[in-house]
């Protein structure tokens, strides 16, 4: 009899604001530290042109291999190049490689994974076969092989990283899609006449994106280390472009003369890795729906 009456005591649904995720992230000490480190590193990489005291390839022959001085806060290398400037520019290289390749992997992996999960079974088997074959390759070996054939460059590094990490994203997207495929809300959408593309992009993506983002933020430090490793071996960026890996490499050659290069290349590498890992773990706590339902 009261069916027509609207409920007046409906609770305030706006409580869960758009920023609640961010607030929750900042409340977590690990997340806050991670966020601060990441912001610092990213902004210093973006602003390298303005904050670096010298050009990263400018020589100062008189001050070769110097320790920290007021002119060169972190000393210079064997060619007299300013180490601080070089590691700021190195950050730019590291982050751009990481962000470009991880976002490419994420998008490609998401798409292929959903296709495998939602599409016909034969396509699924084929894609899974491809993913598994790629995953069987060790990343570094694969990178070395490709670089020997194509020659070292930043693009090669990005391509290798994308190819080897896509299966990770695709597998997660696929499993999640498979689990969602038979849920009632997907059936309900289909019963309303929604086409597969709409179901995938409008209803599956928002439900699978969270674990992929977590994986992505955890993958960034891995990619940064891969890039540094390859550059350390001389297979990444070409000189004179600065990279944390090449700074480290040079630092090792002259470690008896000055320890500052190793510090200038190593510390930012470690900080970035830690920052993104913290952030990734905090993100996982935020996105985990089980913790969210209080």
């Amino acid at each position: 009899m009261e069916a027509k009456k609207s409920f007046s005591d409906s609770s305030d649904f706006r409580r869960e604001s758009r920023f609640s995720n961010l607030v929750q992230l900042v409340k977590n000490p690990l997340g806050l530290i991670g966020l601060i480190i990441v912001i610092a590193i990213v902004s210093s990489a973006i602003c390298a042109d303005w904050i670096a005291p010298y050009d990263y390839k400018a020589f100062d022959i008189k001050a070769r291999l110097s320790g920290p001085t007021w002119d060169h806060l972190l000393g210079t290398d064997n060619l007299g190049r300013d180490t601080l400037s070089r590691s700021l520019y190195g950050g730019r290289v590291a982050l751009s490689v990481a962000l470009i390749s991880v976002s490419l992997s994420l998008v490609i992996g998401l798409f292929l994974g959903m296709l495998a999960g939602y599409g016909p079974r034969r396509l699924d088997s084929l894609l899974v076969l491809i993913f598994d074959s790629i995953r069987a390759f060790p990343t570094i070996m694969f990178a070395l092989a490709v670089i020997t054939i194509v020659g070292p460059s930043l693009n090669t590094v990005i391509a290798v990283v994308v190819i080897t990490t896509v299966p990770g994203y695709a597998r997660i997207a696929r499993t999640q899609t498979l689990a969602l495929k038979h849920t009632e809300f997907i059936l309900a959408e289909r019963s309303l006449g929604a086409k597969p593309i709409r179901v995938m992009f409008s209803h599956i993506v928002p439900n699978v994106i969270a674990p992929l983002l977590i994986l992505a933020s955890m993958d960034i430090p891995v990619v940064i280390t891969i890039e540094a490793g390859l550059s350390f071996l001389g297979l990444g960026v070409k000189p004179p472009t600065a990279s944390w890996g090449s700074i480290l490499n040079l630092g090792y050659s002259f470690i008896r003369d000055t320890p500052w290069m190793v510090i200038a290349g190593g510390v930012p590498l470690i900080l970035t890795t830690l920052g993104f890992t913290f952030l990734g773990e905090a993100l996982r706590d935020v996105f985990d729906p089980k913790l969210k339902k209080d």
Partner: protein
Amino acid sequence: MANILSINNLRVRFRTDGAVRAFIDRNQDPYIDAVLDVSLSIERGKTLGLVGESGSGKTTIGRSIIRLVDPAGGTIMFEDEDIGRMSSNRLATLRKDISMMFQDPVASLSPRKTVGSLILEPFKIHGIDQINQNQKARELIEMVGLNEAFLGAYPHQLSGGQARRVGVARALALNPKLVIADEPTAGLDVSVQGEILNLMRRLQVDRGLSYLIITHNLPVIRHLSNHLAIIYLGRVIEIGSTKDIFTNPAHPYTLGLLSAVPQPDPNKRREKLKLEGELPSLSRRPTGCEFHTRCPFAVEKCQQESPIRQEIEPRRFVSCHFPFPLSQVKVQTA
């Protein structure tokens, strides 16, 4: 035409083994029939209740009507068209005319969408955008007795009853002619149950809707449907008007179902027909009358011969060798 939907000899089968597996196991028949020879019809503006235990195939019948599962045989006529032979384009538009409500009120709403966008979803799917979206959303949410504040809510913030109302709004958004409701009261409290059923009833009268209600809840269906079809192992074993079936069940299974409903009165403790055993497996259907394994009245004939569907009264069919004579067995069923 008086019937908005008529189903004839519908058959739905599922594959149990993959092709390779079936070959290795020398399984000649890797299929099970989930629905067999089902014939029923729904009158325009009326409600048909589909009653059966879980695993009886009642949900599959509902889903095959909107082709979420494909039938293996038989015809499903909606007005004058065979749904089984529709092109995929026609099927997409068919879903404006027939809509479905799923069992779990909360889980059938996409979890990361707001109620507002969920309600407008049907319009987006069918490319209907020449409407005032805000106004339409408000109209729909008020139609089901919720206020505007709910448009910003996410499904997990809703109670079962509220989520069910949103489901009703979504199902009715495009003015369908037929609504298929799978267990519309599942998981709802008794006091809320009534609200939802009254709402569905009011909307049926206002809009001339026809309903197909799939349920195992006999006390509820009694107040909501005009006709009943009782399903056992994917077959219709009795069909007729709700009133007749409740007062004079002709099939022993129907009688068993009715007697199994517990009465909220300690004076009426069960002294009725009790069915032994459980639903047999679909892959090993019993011979003869498929109910004979649980039927307290079964005789030898029941084990050997399948009963033929007989019309014991106008529009009242039963598949049993020995249906209860009408007006002889009076069941006590509140």
